[in-house]
C-alpha cells in the first residue's frame, strides 16, 4: 500500500547519484533566455534534450509548447501530466552564465522557473535509474506564455486541444520545498496607463501631471470597500512614470491585481475600477486606459482529496514542513478543467526574480523524490476520488 513512501529514501539516494545530470540540465537550459513570447530557443533545446534522453515522443506543438511523452504499459489509462512553465520573468534576451558551487546554482531565472524546467528534462533519466515503470503515459510539458501578458495561454491551448481525458497533473516550481498548492484565488491582473499625447505637450496653461493623475487613481482604489468574506485583496504591485526630476510627467502607469475567493467579487471590483478610471479620465482630460492582462477563476481541490493526502504523506515522510498557499499558475488551469492537480516546490532559494537569484542543491534531492513517489501513487489510482 505504502510502497511509494517506503521507496523515498532510495529515491533520494539514487537521485543524488546523478546530480551532475540534473545540474547540467538546469544550467544548459537556464542559460538560454526565455522571456515570455521569446521562448522558442529554449523550447527547441528542451525537445532536443528530451530526445537525447530517449523519450518516446518529443515535439513542439503548434503553439510552441515543448513536450515529450513517456509511454506507459497500459494503452488505455489516461496520462499524467508533469508541467513546469518555460518562460522567465527576466526580459534579458542574451545568453546567461550561471554559476555553480558545491552548494548552490545562481543566475537569472533559476528560481522561477529554470530549475524546475531542468528537473523536468532530467525526469526520464531519473525514472530510468529508479526502474520506475508505470501503466500510465507520462506527459512532460514546459508550456510557453505562462507569465504576465502570456496569461497562461500555452497551457490553456494545450489542454483545450488535448484529445483524451487526463488523469491528473503535477506542476513543478523551483522553489520553495514544502510548497503544496491545490487551490487558487479568482484573479484579474491589470494595468492602468496615463499619458498625454505628444501634440498636447506644453499647450495647456495647467498641464496635468500623469503621476498625479495616477495618484488620484490609486487613492480612489484605496477607497473601495473590500469584504472580509469572500476574502478579497487588491495589490498595487508596480508603478512607473516620468522622465526626470524637473519635468512634468507625460506618461505613468500602475500594475495591480484583484484577488478573491470569489471570481464574481473580482469582476465586481474590476467594474468599480473601470468606473473610477472613466471618471478621472473625464476630470483631467488625459489618456487614461485600463487594460486587463490576465484573469483566472477561483478553483480548488478539496483539502481532503486523496491526491493532497498522498502528497502530504510524502512530504511528511521526507521530513519537510508543508505549507499551502493559493496559486495563480498552471495549477488553476488544470483545476478549472476538473483535472486533479497539485503544485510542488523543489528546493530552497533566495533573491527570487533578481539577477543573482539562487537555489540550493542539497534540498533538491528530496524535492525531486516527491515526483516519482506521487506518480506511483497516482498511477495506482490512489489519487482518484
Amino acid at each position, binding site marked *: 500500500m505504502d510502497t511509494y513512501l517506503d521507496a523515498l529514501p532510495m529515491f533520494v539516494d539514487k537521485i543524488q547519484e546523478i546530480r*551532475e545530470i540534473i545540474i*547540467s540540465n538546469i544550467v544548459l537550459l537556464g542559460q538560454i533566455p526565455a522571456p515570455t513570447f521569446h521562448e522558442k530557443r529554449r523550447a527547441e533545446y528542451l525537445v532536443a534534450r528530451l530526445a537525447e534522453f530517449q523519450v518516446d515522443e518529443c515535439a513542439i506543438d503548434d503553439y510552441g509548447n515543448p513536450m515529450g511523452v513517456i509511454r506507459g504499459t497500459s494503452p488505455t489509462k489516461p496520462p499524467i501530466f508533469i508541467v513546469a512553465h518555460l518562460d522567465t520573468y527576466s526580459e534579458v534576451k542574451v545568453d546567461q552564465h550561471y554559476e555553480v*558551487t558545491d552548494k548552490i546554482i545562481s543566475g537569472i531565472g533559476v528560481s522561477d522557473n529554470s530549475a524546475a524546467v531542468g528537473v523536468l528534462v532530467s525526469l526520464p533519466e531519473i525514472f530510468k535509474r529508479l526502474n520506475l515503470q508505470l501503466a500510465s503515459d507520462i506527459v512532460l510539458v514546459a508550456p510557453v506564455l505562462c507569465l504576465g501578458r502570456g496569461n497562461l495561454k500555452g497551457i490553456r491551448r494545450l489542454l483545450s486541444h488535448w484529445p483524451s481525458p487526463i488523469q491528473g497533473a503535477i506542476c513543478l516550481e523551483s522553489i520553495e520545498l514544502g510548497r503544496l498548492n491545490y487551490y487558487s484565488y479568482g484573479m484579474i491582473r491589470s494595468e492602468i496607463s496615463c499619458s498625454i499625447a505628444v501634440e498636447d505637450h506644453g499647450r495647456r496653461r495647467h498641464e496635468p501631471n500623469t503621476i498625479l493623475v495616477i495618484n488620484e487613481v490609486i487613492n480612489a482604489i484605496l477607497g473601495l470597500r473590500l469584504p472580509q468574506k469572500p476574502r478579497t485583496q487588491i495589490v498595487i504591485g508596480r508603478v512607473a512614470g516620468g522622465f526626470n526630476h524637473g519635468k512634468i510627467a507625460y506618461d505613468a502607469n500602475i500594475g495591480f491585481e484583484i484577488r478573491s475567493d470569489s471570481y464574481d467579487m473580482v469582476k465586481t471590483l474590476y467594474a468599480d475600477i473601470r468606473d473610477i478610471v472613466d471618471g478621472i479620465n473625464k476630470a483631467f482630460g488625459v489618456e487614461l486606459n485600463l487594460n486587463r492582462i490576465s484573469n483566472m477563476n477561483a478553483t480548488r481541490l478539496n483539502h481532503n482529496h486523496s491526491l493532497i493526502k498522498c502528497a502530504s504523506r510524502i512530504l511528511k515522510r521526507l521530513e519537510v514542513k508543508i505549507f499551502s498557499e493559493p496559486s495563480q499558475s498552471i495549477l488553476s488551469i488544470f483545476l478549472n478543467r476538473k483535472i486533479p492537480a497539485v503544485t510542488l516546490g523543489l528546493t530552497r532559494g533566495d533573491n527570487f526574480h533578481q539577477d543573482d537569484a539562487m537555489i540550493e542543491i542539497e534540498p533538491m534531492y528530496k524535492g525531486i523524490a516527491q515526483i516519482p513517489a506521487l506518480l506511483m501513487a497516482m498511477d495506482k489510482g490512489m489519487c482518484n476520488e
Partner: protein
Amino acid sequence: MNKNWIKTNTFHHSAFKDISRLVAEKQRKEVTISLCFPTLNEEKTIAKEIVIMKSELMTRYPLLDEIVVIDSGSTDETRNIARSYDVNVYEANSILPHLQKFKGKGENLWKALHVTHGDIIIYIDADIKNIHHRFAYGLLGPLLFTDRIRFSKAFYDRPISVGDNKWRPTGGGRVTELVTRPLFSLFMPDLTQVLQPLSGEYAGYRSVFESIPFQIGYGVETGMLMDIHEKWGLDVMAQVDLDRRVHRNQDTKALGRMAFVIIKTFLSRIEKQQRITLRQDLFDEMIQYGLLCNQFRPYIRPLEYYERPPMKEIAEYREKFMLT
C-alpha cells in the same frame, strides 16, 4: 608552405556531436581518456565545468575515464568545490615533490601527465563561463576518427570566410594577432594556419605530450605547437572550431607580460632549432611604466623562464608507465 593543411585539418565540433560514435571509436581503438583542468582561484567556474563534463561524458556516455584538477595553490574554495564533485584534485606542488617547485599553467599541465592514466589527455582552461561538453568531444573527434592526427587544438568564433569576398576576423586575441602571428609569419609560416595558437584547450596522445618539454607559464602553448611541428610536422595536428568561448578578459599590462614570455619561448625555440643566433642573453624582467603622483614609475616584474623536460625523461614517470 603547406597551404592545404587548413583545408584538410580544420574541423567543426558539430561533426563529432554523436557521442555514442565517439565512444564506439574509443572502444575500437582501446584507448582511455583523461580530462585535466589546470586551476588557480577558479571557484566561480570550476564546478560548472566539472559538472557538465561529468554528466555528459562520463555518467551518460563513457567517453572520459577520469577528470583531474591540478591546482597551483588557490587561496579560494576551488579545491574544496572540485572535490565535492568527486574528481581527483591535486596541488601541483604535491606531485613529484622532490623536484624544484614552480607555479604556472604549464607546470600544472606537465604534472598532470604524471597523475593521469589516459592514453589521450584533454586540457581545458577552468575559467570558461559558457562551458559545454563540445569543448571536450570536439577536440577528441579528430583524434578518434583518424589515425594520423595526434594533437588537436581549439579555435573559436567561426573565423572562416562567410561569403565570396567577406572575411571575418580570426577571433584571435590581441597577443595572438600582435605577437604570435607575426613571429610565425616571419619564421614558420606553416603555423600561421593555426588560427588561435594560444587557445587554452587542446587534446593529444600521451605519447606526444610526454615527449616534449613544457614551458611552465604562458609560453606553454607556443612551445608545444613549435615542438610538435618540429618533431612530427603539421599533419599530425588538427584544429577544431568550438564556436564561442566566454572567459574573463585580462588587462593590457597582463597581456604585455604574457607577450614577454611568449616571445622568449619563441626565440629560445628557434635558437635551439638553429634558425637564428642570439648574441646576448635575454633578460628576465618585464618592465612596464605607470603614472604615480605625477611621476612615471617603473613596474618591474621578474618573469623567470623555465622549462620542464619531456616527462618521459623523469625516472618516476618511466617507472609508473613502465617505459623502457
